[in-house]
């Protein structure tokens, strides 16, 4: 009964915000029209038919990913300010799936069939790939995913994420623990998300195949709201020198708190990109926990460091009011790749010509990623195989690896 009532309440709330969004969109459209009229004397981007691009995102619900599409929008807005693609403006359509399969399916159909988008770009959703991968294949639509989360983002012919994702990211993290930190007893603590389990198993197997090593201890049964203390103690009792775990940002704080409370300071910890946030560093810094112990991977050039590579990204995001996070890097990168692809097309920009260009896209180098981005016609894509690792030092992140840790292929 509780679930039903909550569902009704949540549905009611979601309904409300969708209406609000509708109003906002109308206002924006009006403003744009006004601007177009004023700027009419010159031949502007808005004179020609816009190039429609779409994205499906989890913007409301339990776990949200708003930054990727916001960052992509900032990139496209700038392109439009500078005259568009050969005079055609980009119309970027952001849909919310509310982390609901039906919502994701409807959003994709609206974009692909009603709006006729030429491609998807910068999407970041909890389940979009699983729901829409087959549909995109059927419709001949391709997606440069801003943040791939569910396993099918990395197992679809029509989706190629710019991020490493939680599975290959886990393989890279294990590789970093065993090869770069050079620890003997590598252990795994993994939150139990049933649909993700086969992909996690495959990720660990890939590390075994690459290194010929095996886990000293593993526990796959953590729940998101567990007290993690007993698991930390289990790892200590098993003689773990380094623990590689997944989880949300708050979980890394939980792990470090537990280590601190138990007085364990000789066990290293490696987490995924989800733990790489400024808040995690600040919070742990204020608690005096995790310093020198916690490592996290950054699938892009680390955003907390003052890297010259990120100057344009940082300026654009700050200007557009988008929070500076890994997700915003993913959205920016996906949009930047898309702009380059669109600009490289000779002749009319249609769904067919964009798809053809993406299928031919191989070895796209960008300083924000350590391995080239590609799309191509492979049955599955996971081109980002490189991470930089950061170590917590006091309340800040410092580089643990100057160079990219690139996962060997094969």
């Amino acid at each position: 009964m509780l679930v039903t009532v909550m569902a009704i309440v949540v549905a009611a709330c979601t309904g409300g915000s969708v209406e609000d969004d509708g109003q906002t969109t109308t206002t924006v459209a009006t403003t744009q029209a006004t601007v177009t009229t004023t700027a009419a004397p010159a031949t502007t981007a808005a004179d020609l038919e816009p190039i429609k691009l779409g994205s499906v995102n989890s913007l409301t619900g339990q776990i949200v990913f708003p930054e990727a599409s916001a960052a992509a929008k900032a990139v496209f807005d700038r392109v439009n300010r500078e005259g568009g693609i050969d005079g055609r403006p980009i119309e970027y359509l952001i849909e919310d799936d509310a982390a609901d399969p039906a919502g994701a399916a409807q959003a994709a159909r609206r974009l692909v069939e009603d709006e006729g988008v030429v491609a998807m770009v910068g999407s970041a959703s909890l389940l979009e790939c699983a729901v829409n991968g087959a549909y995109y294949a059927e419709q001949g639509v391709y997606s440069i995913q801003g943040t791939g989360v569910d396993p099918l983002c990395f197992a679809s012919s029509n989706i190629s994420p710019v991020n490493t994702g939680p599975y290959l990211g886990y393989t890279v993290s294990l590789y970093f623990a065993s090869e770069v930190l050079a620890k003997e007893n590598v252990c795994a603590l993994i939150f139990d998300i049933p649909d993700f389990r086969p992909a996690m198993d495959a990720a660990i197997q890939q590390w075994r195949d690459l290194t010929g090593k095996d886990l000293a201890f593993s526990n796959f049964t953590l729940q998101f709201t567990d007290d993690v203390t007993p698991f930390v103690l289990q790892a200590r009792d098993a003689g773990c020198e380094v623990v590689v775990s997944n989880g949300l940002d708050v979980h890394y704080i939980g792990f470090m708190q537990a280590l601190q409370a138990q007085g364990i300071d000789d066990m290293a910890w490696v987490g995924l990109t989800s733990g790489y946030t400024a808040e995690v560093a600040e919070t742990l810094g204020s608690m005096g926990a995790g310093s020198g112990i916690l490592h996290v991977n950054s699938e892009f050039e680390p955003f907390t460091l003052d890297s010259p590579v990120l100057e344009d990204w940082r300026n654009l995001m700050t200007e557009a009011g988008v929070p500076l996070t890994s997700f915003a890097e993913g959205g920016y990168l996906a949009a930047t790749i898309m702009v380059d692809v669109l600009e490289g097309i000779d002749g009319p920009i249609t769904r067919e010509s964009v798809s053809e260009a993406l299928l031919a896209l191989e070895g796209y180098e960008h300083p924000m990623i350590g391995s080239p981005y590609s799309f191509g016609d492979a049955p599955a894509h996971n081109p980002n195989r490189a991470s930089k690792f950061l170590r917590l030092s006091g309340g800040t992140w410092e580089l643990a690896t100057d160079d990219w840790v690139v996962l060997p292929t094969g």
Partner: protein
Amino acid sequence: MIDTAIASLTSGGAYALLGVGLVLTYRMTGVLNFAHAVVGAFGTYTAIVAFEAGVGYGVAMILGVAVAALLSGGIGVVMARWFAEEATIVRSTVTIAMFLGVLVVGFRLFGDTPRVVPALLPGVRLEVGTVTLTGSTLLSVGGVIVLAGAVAWFLAKTRTGIVLRAVSERPITARLLGVPLRTLVVAVWAVSGAVAGAAVTIIAPTRTNDYASLAILILPALAAALLGGFQRVGATIVAGFGIALVELMGARIPAVARYRTVVPFLVILAALLWMQRKEVWDEAR
């Protein structure tokens, strides 16, 4: 192994505290209070929000407990005003509505993203051999001992305690005898709310929290109170610690680890079956 048992003490203490709160409201006001844990979670989240807004940690925690007490007292006013003479089952059902109400309002106010709660007494650690007792563990276990002692003393030795028991068993008779029923009932609700706020605040830093999962702490608390027959404070406390221990030990056994969160339900089921064991079919029906 002993470490795991020790680690379970914090959760166990919190389950016991919440369970004792349930027994308390049941014995004194004749209501099975389903809103008990959600009121505590509301208080804890108020404390977290205040802390994030820059209020000192200690002050924020006291504020949270006070809000839980006020909220619970408010529910008590509703109970005393409109449902004082209803049957136990009606009053308990009202608390289910209260549970949903507070849950939904809390969702709107606090959102559903997990929050980080700084440890209580972070510097406090007691080393016993190879085992470390943290500040949270000491608070949790200490809180249970103090509360259990206070409740036992209050109900058995004070006039107000005896009056409250009378109110619970014969509300109309008590009122005819001139007992200020409404004030007393509201006071009991407020105290139980404060205890819930404290219990949830103690358990909060030890796990990753979202508002709903804290509200659902009502389940182990109910299981513990049920094992105490909603009467015996001591048995409830033992049951609270036992449930937490079984939950955490379950994490060590791969075959059952994934299912350990259903422990409270199994306990409730087993307890109900055990209590019904002497019922003859015709009578039980």
